């Protein structure tokens, strides 16, 4: 037969088929094979536990990836989410089982926040459970679905059950909410999401962190209100009033309004846990922000808290924060003192 695409169907569709197979090898199969061979976890990362892996599978099965990325791009606008993502960040993710392929966690849309560092930003179990049961109980403007089927409502929770107390109007009228094993797994997975340093030696990594903090402080316009909205409002709320018996109010609180800012600065730098304020016990965990925020940013957010919602306390400077940091290091004061 003639070598004519218009008349020889074997030739035409042979070229179409085998040509596409060849292109597929070049652009998909071979690069994927190469990426797979290079796959290596970052030295500082920990293997996933059974519970975390189960949580990842629930994360996938509920379709969380359609609204949440886990992909920090190497561009300025993504700096809030962490350092640029590297292949090693995903190296411990592999095929779920024979039926289901490897989870795709990079995401294609950011309807909700990026989760690369959600474990660092929000390490409190209590917050995660409340947020999963009804996201609007902690973030009023949230449009995330509620996941009540990851919880049960029982009359008498057994010992060792994870109970969840919701603010007025968000929980069931009767009974106690307890987290199912699925909710526990999902929260364990979310809390495990935290970028580790790119190289194995903490000293060098810390150095890099410090350098980048200085660099970004110089570059970025520091805005206390934005820092508050991104880091604090999910627990203490936009109006500063917190959530009853879980996350304390900042309005008129001694921590925030007393003249000596040391306690306030320490709370932001090192976090807090299990404190009693005005005779009330608070169950939430506050994470340390000392590594996430520069001294200038800490000062900005503290000043925002000290001068809003009717608070009227003296403001501080970045130097005050640096002084507390250095003083504590010198005197070997432990974070939770």
């Amino acid at each position, binding site marked *: 037969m003639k070598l004519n695409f218009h008349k020889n169907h074997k030739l035409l569709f042979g070229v179409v088929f085998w040509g596409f197979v060849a292109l597929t090898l070049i652009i998909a*199969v071979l690069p994927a094979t190469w990426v797979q061979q290079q*796959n290596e976890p970052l030295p500082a990362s920990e293997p996933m536990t059974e519970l975390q892996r189960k949580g990842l599978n629930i994360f996938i099965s509920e379709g969380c990836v359609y609204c949440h990325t886990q992909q920090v791009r190497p561009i300025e606008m993504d700096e809030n989410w962490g350092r640029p993502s590297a292949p090693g960040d995903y190296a411990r993710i592999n095929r779920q089982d024979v039926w289901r392929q490897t989870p795709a966690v990079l995401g294609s849309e950011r309807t909700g926040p990026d989760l690369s560092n959600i474990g660092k930003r929000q390490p409190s179990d209590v917050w995660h459970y409340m947020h999963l049961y009804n996201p609007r109980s902690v973030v009023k403007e949230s449009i995330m679905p509620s996941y009540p089927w990851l919880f049960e409502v029982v009359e008498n929770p057994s010992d060792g059950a994870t109970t969840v107390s919701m603010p007025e109007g968000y929980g069931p009228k009767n009974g106690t909410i307890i987290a199912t094993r699925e909710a526990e797994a999902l929260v364990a997975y979310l809390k495990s999401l935290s970028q580790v340093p790119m190289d194995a030696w903490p000293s060098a990594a810390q150095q890099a962190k410090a350098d980048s903090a200085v660099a970004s402080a110089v570059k970025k316009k520091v805005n206390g209100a934005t820092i508050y909205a991104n880091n604090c409002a999910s627990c203490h709320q936009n109006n500063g009033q917190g959530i009853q018996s879980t996350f304390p109010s900042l309005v008129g609180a001694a921590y925030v309004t007393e003249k000596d800012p040391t306690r306030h600065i320490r709370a932001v730098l090192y976090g807090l846990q299990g404190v009693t304020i005005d005779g009330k016990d608070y169950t939430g965990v506050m994470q340390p922000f000392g590594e996430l925020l520069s001294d200038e940013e800490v000062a900005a957010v503290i000043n925002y808290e000290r001068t809003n919602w009717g608070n009227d306390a003296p403001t501080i400077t970045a130097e005050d924060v640096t002084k507390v940091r250095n003083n504590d290091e010198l005197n070997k004061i432990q974070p939770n003192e």
Partner: protein
Amino acid sequence: MNNPSAVQSVGRPFTVEKAKAEERIDTSPESVKLIFTYIAFSAFWLVFGTLVGEYLGFKFVWPELDSISWFSFGRLRPVHTNILFWGFLSQAMIALALYVVPRTSQRELYSYKFGWVSFWLINTSVFFGVITLMAGINNGGQEYREIIWPIFLLFALGLILVAYNLYKTIADRNVKEIYISNWYILAACLWTIVLVVTAYLPGYQEDGISQTVVQGYYMHQGVGQWFTPMVLGLTYYFLPILLNKPIYSYSLGVLAFWTQMVFYTMIGAHHFVFSPIPWWIQTLAIVFSVGMFVPVTAGAGNFLLTMRGKWRSIARSYSLPFILAGVLFYAIVSYQGTLEAFRSLNKVWHFTNFTIAHSHMSMYGFVAFLVWGGIYGLIPRLTGKEPPQFTVGAHFWLALIGVLVYSVPLMIGGTLQGLSWMAGEAFIESVTLMTPYWVWRAVGGTMMFLSHLIFAYNVWKMRPDSWQRLRQVTELQTN
């Protein structure tokens, strides 16, 4: 509606009188039955899939609509996309191909039996795909390959059978030359078989982000190597036949064909610009995204030049307006896609609702409109039954205005989202600022959904009287 002129001449007619379909085409009843059944089922999946989409759109405005696991956003989103890709568009495109390929090869379809087996395989696959996705069983959250392999295997087998059926039809054609439609249609089937097999095979996409490399290739070629060449191939048949004039340039079609195959295949990674997958794949994808200028301009230009001077015929037809809109959307979304690939613009638009607008303008404005053009062009000629022209017009305008009301606000809102992130505002700002645009999306989505109900009604009106009578008529004609 058989004799409307008497009524309409009394007052001002509400619609412009459309040309009636010519005589019913002499096709075997087997063929009519097979094709119409495909179309009827695709119409069902369209209504069902967009009902789901409509519901999802409402959830952006009222997140507390329900708290039932099977109806939650994360589970229904893949239900929406997979139904419309595989149940509606794929099935409708295959239906039209089962007519176009035998017609242009001047012979009967190789095997009606295979056609029926494909029909059942495809619909069974979509049905069980929907059930499993709603139950929370998906294939690793990999977009558009969410249906797990044992179920999607049925679809793949159906497609392989379609390809074999069409290949045998073309191989045994009664004309010397293979018409350009058949290049596109059979190539689309062959490419998609390779694509689906590559997407699901294990071995090279197990650990870490190796699957991301394949995902970029798969999700983009799903559009570029399946939907696009299928509908372009169909349009290379329907446009000239409905206009009753030859295609402007056959060679432009051939040029677009080969460039489509080479350029489109390279650009999948532009869905992962700035991601940790190898930088060279991203750069290559951006370069070839610019190269897409060639097949798109050749293809869309070819169609528009064919239409030149025939605007009157287009206005008088009820299928050609769909084709005109589809061709315009084809050009617009393709150029838009090239822009989105540039790193500077990708920064603003990636991860935002802009991409949702883009995907709806392509799958709906481009692919679905061309499919509808083909259906309205073909089915009345097969069954001899016209849909009411008022409802066809209602379908056209509701769908067209609907998709614009849907996508223009999302493009604006998506741009504002990107700018908000770049300005370093609190993240929640980018959620609250979207509310009005999501309301517009729900309004546009509702118009689109209504148009689909009308389409389903029109399909019903175009149904063959009865298989029995159809057979008798055909026998009479052939005797």
